[in-house]
């Protein structure tokens, strides 16, 4: 799965003021203009940065959502969601590796 377009969205939000303004005014409308998978679009609209992290979005780029307060996120909710997703992933990986023993 490529998260190229998701990462590109974050890149534009950090470097293009006019795009940031448009996105802030109408995120669903701007997301509709990007060739995303349904899964990516749904996760973005829900501010589900945990899911996006697991899908391979680059956290450094994605963090602009927290700093700019986009998609309903703030610094606390952003970090909480990414941490929960990573913890669940690690727990599942541990369970799988225990099963293999």
């Amino acid at each position, binding site marked *: 799965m490529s998260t190229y377009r998701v990462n590109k969205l974050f890149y534009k939000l*950090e*470097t*293009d003021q006019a795009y940031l303004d448009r996105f802030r005014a109408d995120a669903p409308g701007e997301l509709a203009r990007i060739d995303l998978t349904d899964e990516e679009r749904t996760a973005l609209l829900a501010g589900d940065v945990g899911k996006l992290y697991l899908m391979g979005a*680059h*956290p450094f780029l994605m*963090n*602009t959502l927290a700093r700019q307060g986009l998609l309903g996120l703030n610094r606390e909710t952003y*970090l909480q969601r*990414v941490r929960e997703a990573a*913890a669940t992933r690690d727990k599942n990986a541990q369970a799988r590796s225990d099963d293999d023993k």
Partner: protein
Amino acid sequence: MAKLVLGLGAPHTPHFPTVAKEQGKSSRVTMLFKRLHAELEASKPDLILVYTSDHFVSFFFDNMPTFCVGAFDAAEGPRELSRSTPHYRVTGHPPFAHALFEYGLECGFDLAAAEELVLDHSLLVPLHFLTPKMNIPIVPIYIRGLAEPLPKADRCFKLGEMVRRQIDRWPGAERIAVVASGSFSLEVGGPKMGWIDYEWFDFVVERIRQGNTADLLRRATTRRMVSAGNTGGELLDWIALLGTVGGGAATFIEPDSQPPESPRDAHAYAAWRLEA
């Protein structure tokens, strides 16, 4: 003949200029950068080379070089919208940059070259403190440090050695300072954000202090660097600097873990004086 006169290593936290302004001359950030600034002033450079890792500003995944030399006449930045770093325009040194590009080809380093760039905070924050008048030409040498896969530590060290040979063979009379911009343990936007890998940080600082470059290169695998945070690959900029300065012990290296201005950071400030 050009002459390498100084090596410096510094962090580039985007809010440091604001911190320094708000907290004044007594802040740790101000004092530590002042030490580096004094070294730079004393070395009287005519040209500054900077090893840095772009933070998805000058380059994106559409075209992201592993190694790239900035060959611009002039460039501005930073472009990041959610950062408060002051805006600057810097001048470049295209003849030196192009000569480095060509010499690289001879040495098996097929660098990318960029004649137009928008700059990011990782280049401009150190320069803000080190050369605030922005009156010395800058040639950035970019090392892919934030987006895996990363180049290998040994390769970055050899890149630094190649740059040193280019400095030594450059026919101009420039006095040249080389700066590495980066941290050793810092995560941005990922689950480890706010955590510092002190074991790694202390190990790196001690190896640089001792000039034990061989041990540092052996341990600095991508996996080890990135497990200290998703910007951990910035160590590669320091490793390239070590290649350029000859891998010897730093004149000084000042670790600054948990500075009161920014308690979740750990950074290091270092200098190599290269003139007797």
